[in-house]
Structures are given as structure tokens and as C-alpha cells.
């Protein structure tokens, strides 16, 4: 069934008012952006996420979590998107948990994630484009462990993370999916090296440099050379989650825009009376419904372990990305001059969309995946 069940609806009914209140733009995004916060999110809010059981949403009950799935995580993410709430939920509670699950590292990091004390980051991209198979950062065996050399880019709140999941090449060459190993690297005084910088949307990301950086072999997640499987699991959870968050961004921006159409008067009429704007708004409504359906389908297939999950994840990420892009562009345009001001919130949606769209692969990457996975 592609409708939410009672439990999922109850979760939405709990999370929606919480995010609208505690995660509101003025209280979180603008507050941290305008006060020079180096993390870009509030740790107190992250604690509140933990109190609601959200940080451990994907963590099995025996390990202290809620034992829920991607569909439930997406319910939370759509509300995060709608309110532009900055938090490490997508990277830590969704993607990193999927990377760590089932490995020895899970025991080490899950308790802190459940309690809202631990933040995790994913260090996968190296160039300016998402290309996980192109992983080139080297990890060579040395003594009892490995030594890492290379660069990582677009590591979301990387410098704030207690643990960073790093994709490194232990065999083969860039472009090959075999020979990649995932490491869970704890942040200590010696690094990894790299400070957070602000992104266009006010979120923080780091550029990490590894130079002769030694790690123990017990930092390996799963099998040496077999990192592609847990990395793909993490990325697909992150992509499906980003699709839900983008749907929320699109819905939030559009709700704001439709409200504006009902208030703003020009030529002696409400601008919402103009058919030129009505049809564009109605088209947008349809696209958002379709994007939401694609994100839900992808989440359901991930949860049931269906072999079509990868295809639908690519569809959902690409569809939600382009839908949200349309929503924020129409949003700014229909707001007119006020939409260009920093004071108005609509521009914040445009900025968030741009970053989320690129995260875990942009629309062209995923459109290419749709073609590849469909066999053409």
C-alpha cells in the first residue's frame, strides 16, 4: 500500500508540529547562520531529536534504537525539508547508521547516536562531482593498520563530526567498485585535518586532507576491499532521504508561494487571480505529489530489500531534485522583488535546494543511473 499506515501517520503527527515549532527557520537556520556558529546546527535540538527517539530511528531495538525503516526516516526528513531545519539527521541517523550497521563498529558508535551525543559524517566525494566508484584516496597497509593519503570534499559538517566514515582505495584503480574500503575514523587532536566552512545555504561542510594518516585495522567497516556494499547501502539511504527532504523543501516553498499569491495585490487584484500564475502553481502541485510518491516508493523498496530499490532511489532523487528546483525558482519569481531579499525566507529554500540536490549525487548523476539500471 502506498499510503502511510497508522503508526507512520502518528509519527508524522508528532514530528510535524515539533519541527514547525522547535525547528523553525527563525529559531534554527537563521539563528545559527547569523551567529557565526561553526557547526551550523544546534546541539540542543539534536538532543531533542534523541528524546523523541529520532536519532536512533533506523537502529535496531536490541541496540537501543527504534528499529524503524526508511519510510519512517523519510517522514521525518520531509518535515526537516519543509522547515529547513539544520541537523545531522540525514548524515548521522540515516546514512552513517546504514554504513555502520551489522559491523563491529556499530557497537562502538550506535549508543552515542541514540543518545544524541554523537555526530557522524560521510567522506566520500573527492572532486566537485559525486563519483563514488572514482574513489582515489589511498589506504595502504602499514604495520597493524593502514595509512591514508588523499583528499575528501563536501564532507557535510565534517569538522563537527565525532566519527567520519571515509571511503578509501585499498586495491584496484579509480572507477572500479572493487577495492574500496570503508573506515570509521574517530576525530582526535591529530585530525582528520580540515575546518568547516559555510555553504551557500548556511550549512557547514569540510574539505578533509589526509597525509600519512595512520589508522588501526579495527577502524575498517566490514571487509577490506569490500566497502562498496556498505557504502552503497549508506548512499542509497542518504539519497532516498534527501529525496524526501527535497520534497519537503518543495512543499514548504510552494506553500509559502501560494499564500503569497492569495495576499499580494497588483493592478487592483490578488495576483493569485491571474491564470498565468495559477497554472504554474497547479503544475507545481502535481510535480510535488509525484515526487513524494517516488520518494515513498523508493523507501518502501529499500525497506523490503527489493531488487528494484536502486532504480527507484535514482528516480526519486532525480525527480525530487528537479521538482524542488522548479519550486524554488517559481517561488522566488512569484514573490517578485521581496523574494530577492535576505529578509524573506523564500530565498533560503532556493539555497537549501541547491545543496541537497548535489548531495549524494545530482540530478544528472541519477538520471544517468536510471538509464544504466534500465539497460540503455
Amino acid at each position, binding site marked *: 500500500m502506498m499510503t502511510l499506515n497508522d503508526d507512520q501517520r502518528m509519527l508524522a503527527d508528532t514530528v510535524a508540529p515539533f519541527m514547525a515549532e522547535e525547528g523553525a527557520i527563525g529559531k534554527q537556520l537563521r539563528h545559527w547562520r547569523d551567529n557565526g556558529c561553526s557547526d551550523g546546527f544546534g546541539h540542543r535540538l539534536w538532543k531533542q531529536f534523541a528524546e523523541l527517539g529520532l536519532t536512533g530511528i533506523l537502529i535496531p531495538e536490541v541496540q537501543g534504537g527504534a528499529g524503524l525503516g526508511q519510510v519512517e526516516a523519510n517522514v521525518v526528513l520531509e518535515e526537516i525539508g519543509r522547515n529547513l531545519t539544520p541537523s545531522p539527521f540525514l548524515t548521522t541517523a540515516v546514512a552513517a547508521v546504514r554504513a555502520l550497521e551489522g559491523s563491529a563498529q556499530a557497537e562502538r558508535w550506535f549508543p552515542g547516536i541514540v543518545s544524541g551525543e554523537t555526530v557522524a559524517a560521510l567522506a566520500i566525494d573527492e572532486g566537485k562531482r559525486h563519483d563514488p566508484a572514482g574513489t582515489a584516496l589511498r589506504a595502504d597497509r602499514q604495520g597493524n593498520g593502514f595509512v591514508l593519503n588523499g583528499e575528501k570534499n563536501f564532507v557535510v559538517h565534517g569538522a563537527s563530526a565525532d566519527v567520519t566514515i571515509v571511503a578509501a582505495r585499498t586495491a584496484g584503480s579509480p572507477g572500479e567498485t572493487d577495492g574500496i574500503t570503508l573506515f570509521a575514523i574517530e576525530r582526535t587532536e591529530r585530525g582528520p585535518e580540515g575546518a568547516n566552512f559555510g555553504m551557500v545555504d548556511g550549512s557547514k561542510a569540510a574539505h578533509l586532507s589526509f597525509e600519512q594518516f595512520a589508522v588501526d585495522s579495527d577502524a575498517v567497516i566490514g571487509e577490506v576491499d569490500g566497502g562498496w556494499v556498505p557504502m552503497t547501502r549508506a548512499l542509497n539511504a542518504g539519497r532516498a532521504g534527501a529525496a524526501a527532504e527535497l520534497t519537503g523543501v518543495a512543499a514548504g516553498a510552494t506553500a509559502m508561494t501560494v499564500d503569497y499569491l492569495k495576499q499580494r495585490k497588483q493592478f487592483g487584484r490578488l495576483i493569485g487571480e491571474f491564470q498565468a500564475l495559477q497554472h504554474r502553481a497547479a503544475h507545481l502541485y502535481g510535480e510535488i505529489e*509525484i515526487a513524494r510518491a517516488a520518494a515513498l516508493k523508493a523507501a518502501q523498496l529499500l525497506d523490503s530489500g527489493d531488487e528494484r530499490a536502486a532504480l527507484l532511489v535514482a528516480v526519486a532523487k532525480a525527480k525530487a531534485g528537479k521538482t524542488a528546483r522548479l519550486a524554488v525558482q517559481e517561488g522566488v519569481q512569484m514573490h517578485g522583488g521581496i523574494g530577492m531579499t535576505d529578509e524573506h525566507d523564500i530565498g533560503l529554500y532556493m539555497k537549501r535546494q541547491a545543496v541537497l540536490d548535489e548531495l549524494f549525487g545530482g540530478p544528472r548523476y541519477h538520471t544517468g543511473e536510471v538509464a544504466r539500471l*534500465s539497460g540503455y
Partner: protein
Amino acid sequence: MTDLENFRQEARAWLEANCPAEMRAPMRGEKDMCWGGRNWTFQSDAQKHWLEAMAQRGWTVPDWPKDYGGGGLSPAEAKVLKEEMAAIRARSPLTSFGISMLGPALLKYGTEEQKKRFLPEIACGEIRWCQGYSEPGAGSDLAGLTTKCEDRGDHWLVNGQKVWTSYADQADWIFCLVRTSTESKHGGISFLLFDMESPGVSTKPILLISGNSPFCETFFDDVKVPKDQVVGEVNKGWDVAKYLLGHEREMISGMGLGGSGSLGATVGPIGDPLLRAEIADFDVDALAFSAMSERFIDQLKASVAHPAMPSMMKYAGTELNKRRHELLMAAGGSEFLEWDSERSKCGKPARDWLRTKANSIEGGTSEVQLGIVAKHILGLPGA
């Protein structure tokens, strides 16, 4: 064994015994689809036998009551029957506007006499119906229709013209929107049924850009209609029309308009990288829309779909289908522009492509659907 499982076994055995082999092969063309009616020429004995056998069980309209020629099946049983027919790839025994459009309206608004008189003829394929809605001056603004229907005491007198009447030249009867009062636009319309053989009715096929003529112009010149052939109350025909349109849109949007699944996978290897990119971009939208269709059907079942949602689905699905055929034509190159060659099966790709252009016009244009969404879902003013 549950009752439903019993029913499945029964249906399976009966279908196995009664569905001719020929009726389990994929349809080769329009003529393989059986429309019934006085003028119908069966394509084969198998087509005739299949219709008769199914009609006798009431399974041409499985969920209609038995009293009216239906099968009296519960929704769950009707679903099982559909599944069992799909399993042996059985063709639909009868396709008609009587089944898909008039029947549901009669079941809801018809008198007992009307139901007893008209529904069984529809169920067994004896009478073929056509729909008289659009007029030359009333397309998107359907309620602006002017076909005059006067009360002449013992009968109605109808004068006017309809257009885009699907298969009017082959239909036996018409269900028609007529103006019984000019005092109110929506409140002056009645829903009238009459025989196409009545004196004063004439039809003229319209040649379309696809080279086909599925639609007609239909003229009424002093047509006399018995008084008991109005469905619902006089001047309240708009309610019936709206119910029927909603049913039609729901049906259209539930049919997986927009085509199903990946276009690229059906086209095969695409050498041109720009075309491949365009097709992949389309496939993102097409596969996302498939998910939406699935969700919409579940929402309908759970009665949580917004009443204006069929408009969104109709708009998105038809626009997608037009895009699909534009890309198919791009992939086909000059070969797909052939109009009468043998290898193009008499221009099938081009004719199909041209046919899709009507998708976003018929049943309410895209612009009308967007207006409905703007007004009823987004609550925009004056829409």
C-alpha cells in the same frame, strides 16, 4: 478453503473451459476489440462465442447487480475474476461507453424502469452507445451548450449539433446533454437518452490529422424523444454529467496514462548521447509517475484522495504520454515519418504520435484541469 478461494477455482475452471484460444492471443488491431451493437460485425466465431458466454454469466459487467445483466460479484470477487482473466491473457469480451460511462450514471441516477430497460442491453453488447457532450460552441466551457430540447407535451423536441461524438456513426443510442432551460447555465441542462435511428438524427465522420475518423459531427433536426428518457431530474442533468466525467477521469487516470515504465528500455541502444539524455530525463518522470499512479489508486481505495486529484493525474499523465511519443518519433527518425509504407504498418508510429495530441484536449483540456487544481486544491481566488 475460503469463499473467495472457492470462487477463484470456479472462475479459473470456467474461463479455462469457455475462453476460446483465439481470445487469449494479443489483439492485432482495433477490430479485435469487440464493441457490440446492432451494426457490429464479429471478426470471428470465437469473438462472438466469447461475448455470448461472458454475457450469459453477467461477467461483461461483473460488479453490476444480476437483475440488470451483471454478475452480482463483490468488489473482491470482481478483482479475482480480473486476475484470473489476466492470468490466461483473456481479451476483454466487450468494450463500450455503455459499460464504462452510461452504466454507472444509470445505476446512480436512473429510475428502476430505466435500469431494467437499458442496462441488460449494455451488458450483453446488444446496444452500442455514444456520448453527446461537446458542441461547436461548448468545448472546455461544456455547460455553455445550446442544443435545444423543448417540452412538447407528450414528447421532447431536440434541435442542435454535437461534435467529437466518438463512433457516433456506429452507435445505436446516444446519451446526450441538452438545454431544457435558458434561465440558468448549469441549472438548465438535462441528460437525455435516445435512439440514433430516430428521424432527424444524422452523423458525419471527422477526418483527423492522424488520418483516422473515430469522431463525428452529429446533427439533430426536430428529433422527437419520448418523455421518460430523461435521466435524473429535468434541469439537473449537470449533476449526472459531472458524476460521469469524474468516473471517466478516474478511469483514465487509473489506467496508467503516460504509458507505463521505462521508455529507454523499450527503444533499445541509443547511439545519440543527446537523445539518450533526453530519454533518461523522461524516464525519471515516467517512473516517478508510475509510483504516483500506484499511490493514487491506493488513495482512492482508502478514500483519502482529494476529489480534484483525478484532474492532476489526467493532466500529468496525458502530458507525459505526449512527451513519450515525441521522443519515440525522435528515436525513429525518418522511418517513423513514413505514412503508407508496409514496414511502418501504414504509418502506425506517426498516426499514434498524432493521436496523442488529443490526450490533453479530450475529457477536459490540460488548461481546464490546471484550473480545477488551482481552485479546488490550492484555493486560489477567482479560479
